[in-house]
């Protein structure tokens, strides 16, 4: 298993470690609700170095990635980031990939559920940087203040899905604005050699806004609440990008991409199920069937308690005919309604209310 570069730093703060597709991750620091509270109200730092990081030479790399990924990578402009996916031959998602164009390089950061995804990306990369870079995410309504403290006011000009190169102690650090919680979110991609000192600086800035470190567990809840795709949850259990509602990550006009034949064939025949947000008065389990009276109409593919909303939330694949908000369902045939379909995102993000105001 690939160990985190900052393992000892996190261990000293009480981290509980887990693993994601062969890479170590921090699940939590023992207080998931408190960590989520920081994401929603101040700012939280999370180590995303479990992600795969691949570097490509600009011209060849763009063509290679375009042949594999669903989005049109050839249209990726300098300083911009594309959020897309890698599918296998059967058309199932195996990775969510952020591709950024900076300098004369293209950088791909992937969250993968399948070892083959990393191999497929590595095959065309000029370098696999997964073990030699750290990826640190700062998210929250005050995340911009934390990042401004590190790199200066220039970062306020960084728009969503953009990236910029910064110098930190003589090392090249990429800053991407690609939050996935609904709040302001930035990711620092930095060489391992400066990981500790960068982290020190970020944590000092976090202290200034009342923020804290957090594990990926809190992030996963924030993603669900904020209507952001999680390849490790609904990605694994649903698989089909169309049922997951991720058509926006794909360019159906381009010639082909990995898995495009199966995906386009399904697109042609129409969808029988669609991913839908659910709220439940009782606790639900993943895989739990959902009923309209006696008729089975769906299945829960991701569930969580939402400390922000103080209720159970989840995502279910629901019969496309009724996959919309306002439908009452039950987890047992003929049982009273205890689950309702709802609009996503589940929350109104604090960043939307506050904006970037001192």
């Amino acid at each position: 298993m690939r160990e985190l570069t900052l393992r000892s730093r996190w261990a000293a703060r009480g981290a509980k470690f887990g693993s994601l597709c062969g890479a170590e991750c921090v699940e939590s620091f023992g207080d998931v609700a408190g960590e989520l509270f920081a994401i929603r109200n101040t700012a939280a730092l999370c180590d995303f170095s479990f992600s795969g990081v691949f570097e490509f030479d600009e011209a060849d790399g763009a063509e290679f990635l375009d042949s594999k990924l669903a989005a049109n990578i050839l249209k990726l402009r300098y300083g911009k980031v594309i959020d897309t996916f890698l599918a296998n031959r059967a058309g199932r998602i195996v990775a969510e990939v952020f591709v950024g164009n900076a300098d004369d390089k293209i950088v791909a950061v992937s969250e993968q559920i399948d070892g083959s995804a990393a191999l497929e990306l590595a095959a065309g990369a000029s370098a696999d940087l997964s073990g030699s870079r750290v990826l640190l995410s700062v998210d929250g309504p005050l995340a911009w203040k934390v990042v401004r403290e590190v790199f200066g006011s220039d970062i306020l000009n960084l728009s969503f899905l953009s990236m910029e190169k910064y110098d930190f102690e003589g090392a090249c650090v990429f800053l991407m604005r690609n939050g996935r919680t609904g709040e302001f979110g930035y990711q620092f991609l930095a060489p391992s050699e400066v990981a500790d000192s960068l982290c020190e600086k970020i944590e000092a800035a976090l202290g200034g806004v009342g923020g804290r470190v957090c594990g990926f567990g809190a992030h996963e809840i924030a993603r669900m609440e904020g209507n952001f795709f999680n390849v490790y949850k609904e990605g694994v259990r649903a698989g089909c990008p169309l049922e997951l509602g991720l058509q926006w990550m794909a360019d159906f006009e381009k010639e082909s991409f990995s898995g495009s034949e199966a995906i386009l064939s399904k697109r042609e025949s129409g969808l029988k199920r669609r991913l839908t947000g659910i709220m439940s008065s009782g606790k639900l389990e993943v895989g739990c069937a959902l009923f309209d009276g006696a008729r089975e109409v769906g299945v829960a593919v991701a569930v969580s308690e939402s400390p922000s909303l103080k209720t159970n939330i989840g995502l279910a694949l629901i019969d496309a005919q009724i996959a919309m908000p306002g439908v009452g369902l039950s987890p047992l045939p003929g049982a009273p309604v205890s689950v309702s379909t709802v609009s996503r995102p589940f929350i109104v993000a604090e960043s939307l209310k506050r904006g970037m105001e001192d």
Partner: protein
Amino acid sequence: MPIDTIRLQKRREICLKLKERLISSLDIPYKPDDISDDIPLIGSGLGLDSLDILEIVLCVENNFSVKMPQNGMHALRSLNTLVDYIIQQQDKQCAN
């Protein structure tokens, strides 16, 4: 409790009409079926910017006879939250 099919049908119609109008006015390169009802409108998803927001507001006001509030960002979080807002406002109009 049976599913309220009339209400679902109304929602389906509003949602489809909204998708068709947005595709046409914002030149979105997808078919209505490719647009998930929960798709985020701003940032990720449709990736619309602040100028596009004005187009959305005009689209809603012109096609659904619903006035968008000055600070209506919460309704623009996703297509579904926008449809929620339209239905809520239309229901209010019917009640008056």
